[in-house]
């Protein structure tokens, strides 16, 4: 069970007759019900990895399996939460959450949507349009929309990246709570190290398309940022991201 990434190659461009691979002979297995965080600098291949998992990109070589089913393109199997909320602006909160259920012609769409709206704490906002919501609220609707479709895995592409620091803090706790309530497999892309240590069961640090660190986080939840072990993890991953050239400490 889980996700099985089997020797994938992906390049966007060619240089001097050689393919410039973002991901080269990349392998990874993800266990069911795990919360995975993928860390790395811009250009390390983490977004490419997520886009391949979502099916928006196709690998040049190799395949990806979700619960033994090969990925051919985007599908309702894999829910995606984007950095920008990507809600349909002409649909209300409730209608947005119902989108996938309507596609499946689910007769209980409204009730199911309501359940997930309640779960993300937006009770009372069902009839608002996305333009009336704050960034954090819109992001919660995005999460509810992905969950309501009951996918096998949820892919999150820096979902907190566009939020301000305070909201970001709140949302981090919210995501942990929602994950614990649903126990979905989540692949979470971020470049905030503390965010990854706070949320993940397992942290993957990517560097130039290779796995630099693959570490299980053995800390009880909810996690305390001031715990020395927490800080040790943060230091370890920061060092891995920065890599050999310690001069470029700008990790965004």
């Amino acid at each position, binding site marked *: 069970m889980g996700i099985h990434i089997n020797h994938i190659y992906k390049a966007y461009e060619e240089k001097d007759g050689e393919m410039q691979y973002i991901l080269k002979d990349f392998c990874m297995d993800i266990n069911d019900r795990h919360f995975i965080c993928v860390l790395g600098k811009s250009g390390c291949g983490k977004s490419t990895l997520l886009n391949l998992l979502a099916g*928006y990109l196709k690998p040049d070589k190799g395949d990806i399996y979700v619960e033994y089913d090969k990925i051919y393109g985007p599908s309702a199997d894999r829910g*995606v939460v984007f950095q920008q909320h*990507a809600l349909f602006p*002409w649909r209300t909160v409730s209608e947005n959450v119902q989108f996938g259920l309507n596609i499946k012609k689910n007769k209980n769409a409204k009730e199911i949507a309501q359940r997930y709206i309640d779960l993300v704490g937006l009770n009372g*906002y069902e009839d608002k349009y996305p333009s*009336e*919501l*704050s960034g954090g609220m819109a992001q919660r609707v995005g999460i509810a929309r*992905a969950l309501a479709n009951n996918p096998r895995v949820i892919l999150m592409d820096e979902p907190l990246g566009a939020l301000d620091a305070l*909201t970001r803090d709140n949302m981090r706790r919210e995501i942990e709570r929602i994950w614990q309530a649903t126990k979905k497999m989540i692949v979470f892309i971020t470049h905030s190290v503390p965010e990854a240590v706070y949320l993940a069961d397992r942290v993957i640090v990517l560097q130039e398309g290779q796995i630099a660190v693959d570490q299980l986080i053995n800390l009880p939840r909810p996690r305390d940022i001031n715990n020395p072990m927490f800080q040790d993890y943060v230091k370890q991953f920061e060092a891995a991201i920065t890599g050999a050239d310690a001069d470029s400490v700008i990790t965004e």
Partner: protein
Amino acid sequence: MMKKSKKQISYNTSQERRAKLDKYFKAISLISFFVIWELFGVINDKYSWIDAKFLPMPTDIVESLYNFILDGTLQTHLFISVERVLSGYVIGVIVSIILGALIASFKIVDNIISPILNLFGPIPVMAFLPIFILWFGIGENSKVILIAYATVIYMVSYVTEGIKNTDSLLIRSALSLGATPMQVFTQVKFKAAFPNIFLGMKGALGTAFGAMVVAEMLGASTGLGYIIVFSKNWFKMSDMMMAAILIGLLYTIMFGILSVIEKNLFKWKSKTNGDAIES
């Protein structure tokens, strides 16, 4: 939080008050225009600066309108003009949406149709009227087709651009929620393009009216455009102006109806953050 929302409300009301004042201002300007025109006419009668025949006063135009209504001809002309412009416009809008959707969806249709549209686009619509009359006869067909053509030439690019410019993130999220390509088109691309399509519809109403007036001025025996030409031959200035004003009024009413529909359709657009603040 309370303070913030209160501020928002008072800001809204002061803005509403300003808008109301602006409305009065505009109404007064319009009324003054006719009053000054009338006054000038009255003075002109005394001193004869201009031949009064060529400058009818607003009251003369009202008199013309009264006479036209009285002998029942206005209703006929007005009705036929509305019928022509509406049927041509509606056909044009439907054709534009279908054509625009095909161009935006299939590269091959784009490659076939777009060069032809670009070839005909810059030619003023009016230039086609004689051709259409020879092709489709002097009756209603040539007029309705000219109006439809004027609508399509103006509107089709709005449809195409609207569909093509759909945010790719919305397409991605629809696909990841299980939508088929057809559902992506009907549920996402078309709806995302709708405000742009409506913009095209509003603009096309103007070109449709232009085409209607030209079609009625050339080779018609009914309609508001015909009144203008007919009155010109008899030097009936006030009749001409009455017809022109009616055309303007008709356009304004139809544009107003479109605006009301737009406001109701795109409620999701006009709303702003309001009191929805992250708790």
